């Protein structure tokens, strides 16, 4: 009678490697976002079991509220075009690194929207830049990234790269 082969630690690790991992990278118009995406593609995205989604959240500009009327808040056509361009640029970056990424455009307050998306889409790892649109030079954490670090229900990776001193 054949004895059952023991599952070694390495085989176990290999079996677990096959488990899909949902990774979400949030981007905005800033250069910081795109360099964070580049860093993630170089350093984090290494296994075929990792499923990458690049997300951009459009924050609709509030329209005027007419007396007695409703405030219509939805993203303008210009914003939608801009979002599509951003994600197309992100997509190109992913393709350059031979990574197959999905893209997603969402609408709303970025910090809440990203955290909700993490929950709804069962994201295992959220990757954000550190600065976003604020151009303050000192090392600090932008408000959306800070919110996500505190509130997202998954692991959060804040990408910050050491500045090269010239």
């Amino acid at each position: 009678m054949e004895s059952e082969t023991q599952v070694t630690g390495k085989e176990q690790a290999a079996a677990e490697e096959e488990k899909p991992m949902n990774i979400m990278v949030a981007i905005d118009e800033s250069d910081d976002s795109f360099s964070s995406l580049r860093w993630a593609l170089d350093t984090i995205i290494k296994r075929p079991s990792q499923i990458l989604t690049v997300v951009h959240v459009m924050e609709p500009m509030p329209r005027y509220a007419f007396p007695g009327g409703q405030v219509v808040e939805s993203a303008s056509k210009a914003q939608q075009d801009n979002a599509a361009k951003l994600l197309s640029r992100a997509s190109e970056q992913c393709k350059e690194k031979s990574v197959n990424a999905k893209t997603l455009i969402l609408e709303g307050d970025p910090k809440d929207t990203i955290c909700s998306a993490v929950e709804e889409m069962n994201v295992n790892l959220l990757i954000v830049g550190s600065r976003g649109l604020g151009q303050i030079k000192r090392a600090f954490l932008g408000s959306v990234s800070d919110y996500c670090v505190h509130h997202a229900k998954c692991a959060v990776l804040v990408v910050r790269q050491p500045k090269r001193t010239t």
Partner: protein
Amino acid sequence: MGRKILVAVDQSEESVHALSWCLKSLIDCRDTLVLLFAKAPLAVYSATDSTGLPVSSSIIATMEGYANEMAAGVMKKATTLCKKLNDEVVVETIVEHGDPRDVICEVAERLKVDFLVMGSHGYGLIQRAFLGSVSNHCAHNAKCPVLIVKMPKNN
């Protein structure tokens, strides 16, 4: 082309969870894991204890001994976990003295690690705090990418 990853460890369950999550989800066998335990300096500054008698050096030595034992214990548990989950990855250990907030950021910069991993809470697991003070500090101030791993809440 392996990565060098710094993992901050302490006695908390969160830190063990962060290390094992990292090993299972991110690390591959070409990486080097550096486990860092920051030993906060002993807060024994008064020359006398509550009875008015001088604090003897043997008490201080005992406390130091206890702190060292704890550091060794945490490291042993962490390295055993690494071996169990991925026996090919290279593991280095560092024990440093000082405030964890500063020690972690400083070591990450000194070693030029690819990124830093920590749990979301350490010693003080205050239920209402979303993020412990050390993790919060490092997320803001480390000069390298920081990965904060959270333990799923059992609600």
